């Protein structure tokens, strides 16, 4: 088991290094960042001075190593446009994005898995509805759902705030109220997607030979279902929830914009339109870290559940 954890963790770290290097070199292709900061009227001397100030006259590999060394210590550099430390900006924005994505994942997972189980066991109308909802949920763009929800619940019914975010520490009730519509927006498609996947995983286990053999021993159907079927359908369901979370991270950018949530999305979009390279790099690095961590967690969890891995 320890060997398994070590192998997966080290490959996650290598992945992180490679992706960070790729984005760093990609950002280096930016023609002349000084232009974006100083404006088109800047003279060649001013541009050269800016380049030297930003350290862009040094070779890219050396800069990457410096950046990486600093990043390991938690220093992601300074924004070219605001002069703020990138790690500070991310530190204030990340909790908002994680509040949204984690809550949404939790809601989708709980409802989706419950619905998927019912669909797999009962079949019939529930099963067909889950299938239709999953296809429809895939096609409806989240941003439209968000706009519609705002129109109905915030503008017409005035029961929930249309936009804005209240930190959890300030007021848990207002925090929850500010998240209801964004989470609901995500859940419309997310619940059906997870339900469909869970249903397929459970249906597959239900058809396994050993389930029939357990029944032939006189074990009650309920016990076979809640002990054996659930146990064997958990790894695929976990994988689906992990994928859903990673998908949400990208989707959150749009959702945050609709509901004016001050998360990573607004930071990234602002930095992107202003060619603020250190901030974009910081956001990419943090996002990749989150993705790699979630993948690693899912990997280790399914590994821990698989007796074949535990023995190796």
């Amino acid at each position, binding site marked *: 088991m320890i060997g398994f954890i070590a192998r997966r963790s080290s490959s996650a770290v290598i992945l992180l290094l490679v992706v960070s290097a790729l984005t760093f070199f990609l950002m280096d292709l930016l023609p002349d960042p000084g232009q974006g900061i100083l404006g088109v009227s800047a003279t060649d001397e001013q541009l050269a001075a800016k380049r030297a100030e930003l350290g862009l006259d040094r070779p890219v590999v050396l800069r990457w190593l410096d950046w990486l060394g600093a990043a390991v210590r938690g220093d992601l550099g300074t924004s070219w446009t605001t002069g703020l430390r990138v790690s500070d900006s991310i530190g204030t924005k990340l909790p908002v994005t994680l509040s949204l994505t984690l809550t949404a994942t939790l809601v989708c997972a709980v409802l989706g898995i419950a619905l998927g189980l019912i669909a797999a066991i009962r079949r019939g109308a529930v099963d067909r509805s889950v299938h239709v909802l999953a296809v429809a949920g895939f096609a409806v763009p989240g941003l439209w759902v968000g706009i519609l929800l705002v129109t109905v619940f915030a503008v017409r019914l005035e029961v929930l705030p249309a936009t804005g975010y209240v930190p959890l520490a300030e007021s848990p009730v207002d925090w929850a109220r500010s998240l209801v519509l964004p989470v609901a927006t995500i859940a419309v498609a997310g619940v059906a997607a997870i339900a469909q996947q869970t249903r397929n995983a459970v249906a597959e286990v239900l058809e*396994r030979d050993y389930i029939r053999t357990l029944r*032939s021993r006189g074990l009650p159907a309920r016990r076979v279902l809640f002990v054996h079927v659930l*146990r064997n359908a958990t790894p695929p369901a976990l994988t689906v929830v992990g994928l859903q979370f990673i998908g949400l991270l990208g989707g959150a950018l749009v959702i945050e914009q609709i509901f004016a949530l001050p998360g990573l999305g607004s930071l990234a979009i602002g930095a992107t339109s202003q060619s603020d390279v250190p901030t974009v790099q910081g956001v990419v690095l943090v996002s990749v870290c989150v993705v790699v961590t979630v993948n690693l967690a899912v990997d280790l969890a399914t590994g821990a559940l698989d007796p074949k891995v535990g023995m190796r």
Partner: protein
Amino acid sequence: MNDNPACSPAPAAVLAPASADPTPGPARSASPAPPTAPRRRGPLARFLRDPIALAAAVVLLLVVVTGACAGLIAEHGPNSAALDAVLADPSGDHPLGGDGSGRDVLSRLLYGSRTSLLAGSITTCVALLIGVPTGLAAGYVGGWWDTVVGWIADVFLAMPGIVVLLAVVAVHGPGLVVSMVVLGVLTAAPVFRLVRGEVRRVRGEPYVDAARVAGLSDVRIMRRHVLRVVRVPIITQASLIFGVAMIIESGIAFLGLGEPDRASWGSMLGDASTHVYDAALLSVWPGAAITLTVLAVTLLGAGLRDAFVGDTAGPVRRRPTIGRPAREPAAVGGPSTVGTDVLLAVDGLRVGYPTPEGEAAVVDAVSLHVGRGEILGLVGESGCGKTQTALAVLRLLPAGGTITGRVEFDGQDLATLSERGLNALRGRRIGYIPQDPMSNLDPSFRIGSQLTEPLRTHLGLSRDAARKRALELLDRVGITDPPRVFDAYPHQISGGMAQRVLIAGAVAGEPDLLIADEPTTALDVTVQAEILDLLRSLRREHDMGMVLVTHDLGVVADLCDRVAVMYAGEIVETALAADLFARPAHPYTAALLAAIPPAEGGAGERGPLRTIPDRVPSVRERPTGCRFAPRCAYAAPECAGHPEPTGHGAGAVRCARVGNEVIAWMR
């Protein structure tokens, strides 16, 4: 919101058929064929008969045409603004009104479809152009190429797609083509994985090996065999990528990071989102346009997949329902010779599964009985309904299976007994040994827990007593180190050991009746003999009755007292085992016996292996007369009628010509 390309495996499964029914009956076909026209249809014909796919194609065509002809239809340019049109209500000049900047909504909607379709096309093409060839190569060649490309795909899958796209926009500035090409590169990873997986699966198939042995070049094998298999999942995947790309394009435009001059449904939604208070209707047009188009693309993909998959479904013919009594004459069972105490009496059993053409009876009018301490062999080729009969007794048929007839066990009718009442009998009075040992143990639980669980919940033993009993059982079935196997997981023991574990589980409750479904098929010959010895001694110890399902006549000769021969869902002959081997009455039995290869070193020269021509007809192909007649060497005109069983010796035979002395002599 499903914006990350790494997430596309999720929607892929979304579009899988809603119910994968395990119906062993006729293959499910896309559209039920009329009973009189069993001809094959091409994918195109099947596609044209699928209303949803057709509707999706029409919608998509509409979007393409209106997009292409936007310049002709629209009265305004997509970017021409007029002050009096700002948030204007629908009117003759602006049929859908004006947006927040005074641009015509209808024009932008029409021009926006160009952007969406272009985005989808670019991304899909790039993803396929990269993913398919690399996946084919990695799956087919394997080796270092597979390792390297697989690792690169992992890197791409770990990237948060939208964030990377933002980085690209930051460097490059807004650009539809560049963004969508990058998205295509990112999305190539799941395509690569899908194709590689499919190719790996196909590579091991016998027909690919055969093609290779036949000397076909790798390129030709790829084109002729491998591509055919992967095209269906690729179609589905491509439609999903197309949809994801359109949604992501709208997201980028919505965020204001798209090309400012290009009309896009996403930027229309962006405009609408700033006017939720004063023009709530603005979001409806672009939102509905995206939804409908994505829906059309994905449903079209699903329809195409079904049309191609349907290739494998053969013709479906409705079998005429035969007005025959469900019950058999009692004579068919014949008198029992071992003990008079009848334990299990099956009478007129029919097992049916629902199909698009109505119910298909895989087992029909089966009657048999087993006495205490008696072993009944149930033999026949694969697909004759032996296993279905065995499972019907325990009422553990796959989903959809229905039972009619009587299944009397010790005075109770199992076919109508409550689930609760039946469950009380399972494991305690009726034991079951399954066919394939490795797939019948739950891989996630230790052997010990799987053995003690029923002992504790069902027989009410304490934890320690259950453990002690389980170890005894393991010892009894000939496992040399019971504590080690008790603590092992199924993947840590051999097939022979697993079969012993399953036998231990089946006899744990000391049942009166044991149903053994091919208990030795998956094992090698020496282990087979030991298992048969074990069954024999268990029978002796507990005076167990046994139904032994097998296609191995050697096992029958070794173990069984009586034999019932099944063919195409019905019993064609019952006899004492000794009589059956000495003097088979049914031509099918005779043919089965003749197909046994002569023993090694036996008398006589070794001629070619004798076989029965053709194969067992599937449920929908069964003849209305004698079901064996088409393969029978003695078929005669009277075989056109369906024969009823007639008494013969100590058993019964279902053959119209059983009295024919010449045939009897030939056998």
